[in-house]
């Protein structure tokens, strides 16, 4: 070991302690930065020089310490768990939100719902039956019938509007996904060159992890790391991000609920139009499934199914009332008249209208039973009760939506719990603990002081050797 070897050893100590303090500083200032993962300076002891030659003489201490790198204390497994759980919670929360909005547009149970209006409608028929041929109850009946029709139309339009709004936000989500994918591709490039140049890419990795997590929330997907430090993001089996290339997605299909059956809203690759991406999770998948068209078994998209429910109810209402109304006769003797008409060019709920405009066109009585007979009106008022009541169809519709919303909310809650626990585990590993950093700061500070002291000691020893040696007796 050379004369000045110990000075160099002390110097490496100073450098290592300084690097450690720098890392502590970086951790402390980023304690609240979202997505920041704590870092450590990795050091290792430099071994003693191998002895060469005959007169190497004796055992030698090591040569000091080297800074090997700056470690990023993340856990790929926990990161993957966060992505998986947030894909599921993105999917379920989008669906639960849609159903919750849908059921609140029903205003059931209560005095403002369609069921209450339906009951007023039947009661109005009862009053018409009590005073058949009178102007006043007939006027009330026509008013209640018009309100009923309006309320059905309002309900249907609310569903239609919700569909359009969700379709609009699907476009927004797809744009967000494309932006995130492009950013990941860009970061991939920068990380690759940083790593190739032997620099630390920790902060870039943090930013990329935040982006891949938000991609997972939007569209699910799998993140696959590559040798060169880049990651590929696979969505529906195809690469959304591959190295430094991002493939854009776009939303295709109907922009109105009425067209959804023929041309369902879907997400496709921009480079391969016509083929829908089978998303595994994420809020985009949730939105696409909510926007799906209705099917025969009632398991289609929640919104289209609700619209179909409104239509089916409008048809039933019109058919049941008309069937009885046609058997009756008006005060002027006309028979076979309809009470409700449905415009076939529109969805049934929107095309429903009330035919009679005055008391003279309402068939209240049976033919030949006298001009003020109200037996047919009474029979119509009875359509609202009994085991085969028209109301029951509406109640079943409301309960169906209620059950779906309830189930979806439970699933969403469970998915949120899983996400919370995954995020907690991730944060527990990756976040900065102020106490720990303070401890590290102290130890690096002392290490620095110690190294400086070694330097001083060597300096003094050399001083003795150089300046005070050979002056005995002078």
């Amino acid at each position, binding site marked *: 070991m050379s004369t000045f070897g110990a000075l160099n050893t002390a110097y490496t100590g100073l450098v290592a302690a300084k690097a450690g303090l720098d890392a502590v500083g970086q951790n402390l200032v980023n304690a609240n930065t979202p997505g920041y993962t704590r870092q450590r300076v990795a050091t290792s002891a430099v071994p003693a020089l191998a002895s060469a030659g005959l007169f190497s003489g004796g055992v030698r201490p090591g040569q000091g310490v080297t800074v090997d790198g700056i470690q990023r204390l993340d856990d790929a497994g926990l990161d993957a768990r966060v992505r998986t759980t947030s894909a599921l919670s993105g999917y379920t929360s989008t669906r639960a939100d849609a159903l919750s909005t849908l059921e609140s547009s029903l205003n059931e149970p209560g005095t403002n719902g369609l069921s209450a209006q339906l009951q007023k409608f039947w009661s109005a028929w009862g009053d018409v039956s009590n005073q058949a041929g009178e102007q006043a109850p007939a006027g009330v009946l026509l008013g209640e019938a018009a309100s009923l029709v309006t309320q059905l139309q309002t309900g249907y339009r609310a569903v239609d509007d919700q569909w359009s709004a969700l379709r609009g936000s699907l476009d927004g989500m797809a744009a967000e996904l494309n932006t995130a994918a492009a950013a990941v591709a860009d970061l991939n490039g920068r990380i690759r060159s940083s790593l190739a140049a032997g620099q630390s890419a920790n902060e870039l990795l943090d930013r990329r992890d935040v982006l891949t997590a938000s991609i997972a929330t939007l569209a699910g997907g799998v993140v696959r790391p590559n040798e060169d430090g880049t990651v590929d993001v696979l969505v529906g089996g195809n690469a959304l991000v591959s190295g430094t290339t991002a493939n854009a997605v776009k939303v295709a299909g109907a922009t109105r609920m009425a067209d959804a059956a023929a041309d369902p809203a879907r997400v496709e690759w921009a480079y391969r139009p016509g083929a829908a991406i089978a998303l595994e999770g994420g809020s985009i998948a949730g939105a696409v499934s909510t926007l799906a068209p209705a099917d025969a078994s009632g398991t289609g998209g929640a919104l289209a199914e609700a619209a179909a429910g409104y239509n089916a109810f409008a048809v039933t209402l019109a058919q049941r009332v008309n069937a009885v109304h046609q058997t009756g006769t008006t005060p002027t003797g006309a028979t076979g008249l309809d009470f409700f008409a449905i415009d076939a060019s529109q969805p049934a709920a929107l095309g429903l209208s009330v035919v009679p405009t005055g008391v003279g066109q309402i068939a209240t009585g049976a033919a030949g039973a*006298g001009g003020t007979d109200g037996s047919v009106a009474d029979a119509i008022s*009875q359509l609202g009760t009994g085991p085969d009541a028209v109301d029951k169809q509406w109640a079943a519709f409301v309960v169906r939506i209620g059950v779906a919303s309830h189930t979806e909310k439970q699933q969403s809650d469970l998915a949120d719990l899983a996400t919370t626990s995954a995020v907690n585990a991730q944060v527990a*590993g990756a976040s900065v603990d102020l106490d720990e950093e303070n401890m590290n700061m102290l130890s690096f500070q002392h290490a620095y002081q110690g190294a400086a002291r070694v330097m001083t000691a060597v300096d003094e020893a050399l001083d003795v050797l150089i300046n005070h040696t050979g002056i005995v007796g002078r």
Partner: protein
Amino acid sequence: MISRVTNATQTLNAQRNLQLSLQRQAELYDQASSRRLLTKPSDDPTATASALGVRSDQATTAQYQRNVSNGDAWLTTADSALTSVETLMHRVRDLTVQGANDGAMSPEAKASIATELDGLKKSLLSLANTTYLGRTVFAGNSDAGVAFQPDYSFTGAPGSTVERRIGPDTTVRVDADGAAAFGTGASSVFALIDGTVSDLRGGVNVTPRLAQIDDRMKAIVGEHAEVGGRQTRIDKATDALAVGANALEAQRSSLEDVDLSKVILDLKTQDVNYQTAIAVTARVLQPTLMDFLR
């Protein structure tokens, strides 16, 4: 691995716990202020189904109650008309008995009895045409405006009765059968009195008319009894519907409304929980090692 605890996890947990606590508080507050347990179907789909059914039953019951009170008015009108008719018929019979006393009665006295009988007939005809809200109570569903035309023809259609619904499967007839009570055309009570009047004026003995009058009175009393019977059914239905309405309201309330004392107690407890959570959070999150280093 025991998970590492850092300031960040502590903050995260504190945030989540406070948020949960606040959500629960908001939910309870919502229930306490709206006093409704069931605000949307997903709160409890099963209870929603029941609540919709109960509300439908309530509306139906309310309609039956309106029907009953309408029917009650019809029957009361018919009842009071028939009571007056019976009084008049007693007078008709008394006068006819007087007029049958050929020996004691002068033609002038018989003429004055005939005049009074004529007046009574007109009163009877007007009673037979009694209306409720513009509808004759003795002529079923006729829209002619009168039950008996001036020629004593009956305007009601045979078998056409006025029914009021008092239950899902039950209706009550609320009109009185004018044809049965008063007879129609030549066999009507009006024609009978006309005949008596012309007999009195023409000097024919009216004794045979007495039996016919008695028959007619029996028919009227019989019809009156039937009206009374229906009135009883209507009264019973009124009571039953009132009881039913109360029971339905109790059911609705138990399905939809909150137990206020329970909610207030829960809210109070939740309030304490929340305040505790805030206080604890404030104490836990504050200190770090930095506070103790020089």
